[in-house]
């Protein structure tokens, strides 16, 4: 043993701690394996603290609003009534159109099935290392949350999927902007299939589109194809921002996701595998 180590036990402690953490990192390789019990434990212990703080914030916020924002509430109410009026009209038109193909009972059952399988969740925490990787929501094991459930924003655009760890009342969502995320998608007009991955900086990259493939349009919408077996088909993900034909085999296509990071508060967790009930 080197003489400086014999003399200084503090250095030994430091080396020991670093060594332990290197072992901890090593046992998690390859990536995307099942989380370690230690990680699950840490998540289960500390995420409720975040949950509590956010709950307190929300309660304080609603208390503040109820006392000082009554004028705003009236305006908001009128706006919501108007919005609801148009949504009801839209709903009726869609129902009437659907009746051409299905009976009233079938439609009602299908709609009920959708409603029962959508879980409302709120974001309680952001990823400490990179905000575009993941968020933590206030729904967990007790709410029947399971891995790989798709998550949408309030407008129905894809946000990501549930990944572990899942604690009793909290779980983590891997965002579509994470560079380890992979989604099978197709483009709206040309219907070209590709794999969408995040760039870790708030945008997505459409991968494996051959340079010889047909050109896409800027602003062309991108939807999930359902071929990955995780995300149901037909969910809007984003639109093509830029495309570049490189000297390599594949095109370089950037996709801007529809969900807005600043607006990421209310989310919908889809509990069924197949949303395409019609």
């Amino acid at each position: 043993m080197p003489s400086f180590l014999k003399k200084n036990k503090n250095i030994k402690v430091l080396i020991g701690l670093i060594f332990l953490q290197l072992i901890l990192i090593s046992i998690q390789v390859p990536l995307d394996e099942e989380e370690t019990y230690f990680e699950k434990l840490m998540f289960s212990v500390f995420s409720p603290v975040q949950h509590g703080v956010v709950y307190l914030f929300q309660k304080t916020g609603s208390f503040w609003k109820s006392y000082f924002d009554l004028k705003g509430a009236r305006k908001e109410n009128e706006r919501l009534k108007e919005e609801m009026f148009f949504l009801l009209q839209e709903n009726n038109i869609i129902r009437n159109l659907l009746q051409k193909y299905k009976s009233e009972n079938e439609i009602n059952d299908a709609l009920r099935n959708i409603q029962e399988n959508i879980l409302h969740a709120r974001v309680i925490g952001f990823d400490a290392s990179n905000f575009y990787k993941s968020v933590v929501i206030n729904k967990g094991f007790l709410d029947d949350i399971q891995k790989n459930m798709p998550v949408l924003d309030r407008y129905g655009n894809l946000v990501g999927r549930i990944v572990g760890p899942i604690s009793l009342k909290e779980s983590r969502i891997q965002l579509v902007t994470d560079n380890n995320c992979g989604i099978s998608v197709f483009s709206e007009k040309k219907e070209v299939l590709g794999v969408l991955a995040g760039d870790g900086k708030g945008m997505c990259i459409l991968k494996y589109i051959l340079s010889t493939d047909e050109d896409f349009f800027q602003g062309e919408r991108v939807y999930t194809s359902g071929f990955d077996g995780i995300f149901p088909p037909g969910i809007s993900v984003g639109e093509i921002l830029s495309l570049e034909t490189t000297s390599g085999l594949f095109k370089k296509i950037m996709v801007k996701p529809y969900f807005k990071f600043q607006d990421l508060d209310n989310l919908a967790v889809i509990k069924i595998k197949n949303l395409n009930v019609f």
Partner: protein
Amino acid sequence: MKNLIRVTAGIIITIIIYTALAKISISAVQIINLFSLVVIYFAMEKGEVFGACLGAFCGLIYDSFSLGVFGVAGIAKTLTGFLAGYVSKKIDVNPFIRSLIFIFILISSELIVWGFFYSYIFSASFNTGKGIVFLQPFGTAFSGSLIFLLIRKFKGVTSKHKK
């Protein structure tokens, strides 16, 4: 036992402030590295071994708030805790300006170590948040020096009252 309670309280307060800051502005938590401040504060008070152990623990908490490999932040914070405890025993880093420079150097080194491990393990460059993350050493150093100064003043007032 008293130390354990103080450290636990410090960590819980940090998580609360971290969550509240993230809810208000996501950039704020990129500018101020709260977990490292707790590590540096206790390392300066209790020494390098305590700092290293607390750094390892706080790093693991930090990692539990992020998706990916568990333990990356732990190594960087362990080194920060150890260095903070070791240097503060040799040099008086309590005056405001010295404390500012001291924390600035520690956080800059931590960012480099963390960035290296992150890029190596994930094979990708880390998100700088349009460069905001580079303000972290100064943001953390300034807020940390100010907080440490206030704590010392508060402690001074309470000890005078006791006498």
